[in-house]
């Protein structure tokens, strides 16, 4: 049996800090939260810097969260060193996308990157009724609320946690 070594298999490589691509990716987390991460290359920043001059770097970096149903948006200011952010949104079951850009001193928004679209999960019973299906009595206990996570987490976490009891053995193999 050949015995491989982790570092040998990884051939001395490490996880890259960046991939050298411009991208803005949006993920759903729950009915009111999204997660966005991004990568902006120096080339892209330079392109805008050339166009907008000295103002560019002092312009506020923002994420615009667009609501596809209303066409409205809200803005979240970003620290220019950040690479991701959790974003609170108002509506469950709603399609959103985000745009990253900077706000110039004159107030105009310059878009740099656009994300994919995600739709938030729902957190309530639908008001939409299909008339061909009669509704039954168990829906009368309104508001009907479901108990979440009544499942694997506590047990599964135990399966791994129980193995390592003492703090000093944590993180050890």
């Amino acid at each position, binding site marked *: *049996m*050949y015995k*491989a*070594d*982790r570092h040998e*298999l*990884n*051939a001395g*490589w*490490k*996880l890259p800090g960046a*991939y050298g691509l411009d991208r803005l*990716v949006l*993920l*759903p*987390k*729950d009915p009111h939260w999204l*997660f966005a991460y991004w*990568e902006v290359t120096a080339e892209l920043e330079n392109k805008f810097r050339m166009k907008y001059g000295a103002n560019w770097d002092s312009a506020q970096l923002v994420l615009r969260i667009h609501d*596809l149903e209303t066409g409205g948006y809200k803005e979240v200011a970003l620290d220019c060193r950040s690479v*991701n952010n959790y974003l609170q949104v108002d509506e469950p079951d709603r*399609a959103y996308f985000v745009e990253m850009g900077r706000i110039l001193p004159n107030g105009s928004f310059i878009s740099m990157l656009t994300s*994919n*679209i995600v*739709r*938030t*999960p*729902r*957190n309530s*019973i*639908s008001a*939409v*009724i*299909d008339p061909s*299906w009669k*509704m*039954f009595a*168990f*829906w009368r206990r309104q508001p*009907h609320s*479901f108990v*979440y*996570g*009544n*499942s*694997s*987490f506590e*047990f599964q976490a*135990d*399966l*791994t*946690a*129980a*193995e*390592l*009891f*003492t703090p000093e*053995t944590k*993180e050890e*193999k």
Partner: protein
Amino acid sequence: MSQGYLAIVLHAHLPYVRHPEHPFSLEEKWYFEALTEAYLPLFAVFERLLADGIDFRITISVSPTLAGMWQDEYLRHKYKGYLERLLTLADKEVERTANDPLFAPLAQQYKQRFQEAYRRFFRQYDGDMVAALRRLADSGKVELITCAGTHGYLPLLQTQPEAVYAQVTAAMDQHTHLFGQPPKGIWLPECAYDYGIEQILREAGINYFFLDAHGIGYAKPRPAFGTYSPLITPSGVAAFGRDEESGKQVWSKTEGYPGDFDYRDFYRDIGFDLPLDYIRPFIHPDEIRLHTGFKYYRITGKSDDKEPYCPNKAAQKLAEHAGNFMFNRERQIEHLAGVMGRPPIVVAPYDAELFGHWWYEGPDWLEVLFRKVYYEQTVFSPITPSEYLSLNMPLQEAEPSASSWGDKGYHDVWLNQANDWTYRHLHMAAERMVKAAADFPAAAGIQKEALNQLGRELLLAQASDWPFIMSSGTMVRYARERVEDHIVRFNRLLEQIYNAKIEREWLEKLKANDNLFPHLDYRSFAPKNTTAKLAAWH
């Protein structure tokens, strides 16, 4: 004539934790414990029920990573050493407790159990768990379904629908190869669903999947029958909803059966209790104390004062609990059948590893339950989802809600500050994999081997277990390294493929080490004109 149906579903899954690079691996020990304490005893239960002519039904989802470990020669060999060591400890324990009237019978019982595991695995099954399960499935009473390839958390991989598709097809292909026919259903890892996944399941040839109660409950339009009937999703695939009531009775740590004071305590183990000199050969080589499987106490109560375990009392209790579960289902199904005017289905899914590993009495409980259901009541019948669908009852069309069965009900456990860094790497790798599949549509020779291995590394990186472990806070380094290792190997291999400079020797090492899905075809990642991407537009 039954008024309704009960579908018990066991989800059997462990991540791919094969580590030939370490003489001792804690992660392999999880797998060996699950074999000894859960999978083998559960198979024994179903074999006994069949032998006794009990008309039961169980649906088992076998995760492809688990099936892959079952098939692995190296792990079979290593399991032998594990069991032999356990049997040596059993002999020592029988001797040590010989004059102790309370512990001697327990030590004997453990010895018998571990001997039985050895006999079953190596003699009866000849090391082949897959063949054993296939024989069970041939009875028609056990329905085998699959799970995503490496248990990837699909909603968070959906930015590349091809990655989700490849997770599903890798699973379908392996299942078909091992069990002789394609699975009709799938257990979505962590019951996690996002809009559009049903399209991918449809394209892959899946008939049904499962959702947590609110995934069905919050469907649009409102589901007339709640979780007591499957829905037809927009793609035509059926979605079954988990029943809250039966879930709570088993799962809940506070109210559930497994927490009963007469049941065996999981935490008190001689690995922690006995002197180091005695226990040293049976714990971690670095003298870190570990569970050995010899546990002599019952849960007793909330404090640390534990009383000796009494198997007879526990057996009485599990029979009571099986009766209670059956009684509750009878009343529930009677009531629902009356209200609905058609037979309801109650879907009760559990992690297979709960039975026997964590809940020691779990396999016996399941056996007693099926016997009671067969002999002592006529209100409901056990059923598989496929059988239920073949009753051809009209099903309502609706779109489920994005959801999971994890803490807080959505994606929080797999997307938080402990693990969110992984997605920028996973998505980039998936995107590059799809592109590579397009750039090399007809690779051959070493290039093809490298592309197939590229797919394996991506799949292994995508396992939901890694972000889960990062959230749970223990063994974090292991999970971090697994993501890192597979992504790093992916990145390097990709570069070699594009530069047409593939190092044969290194590739062989990767193939030998990360050897899940020997039949994987990288073209399953090819770009697809899938509608899944557009699902968010509704």
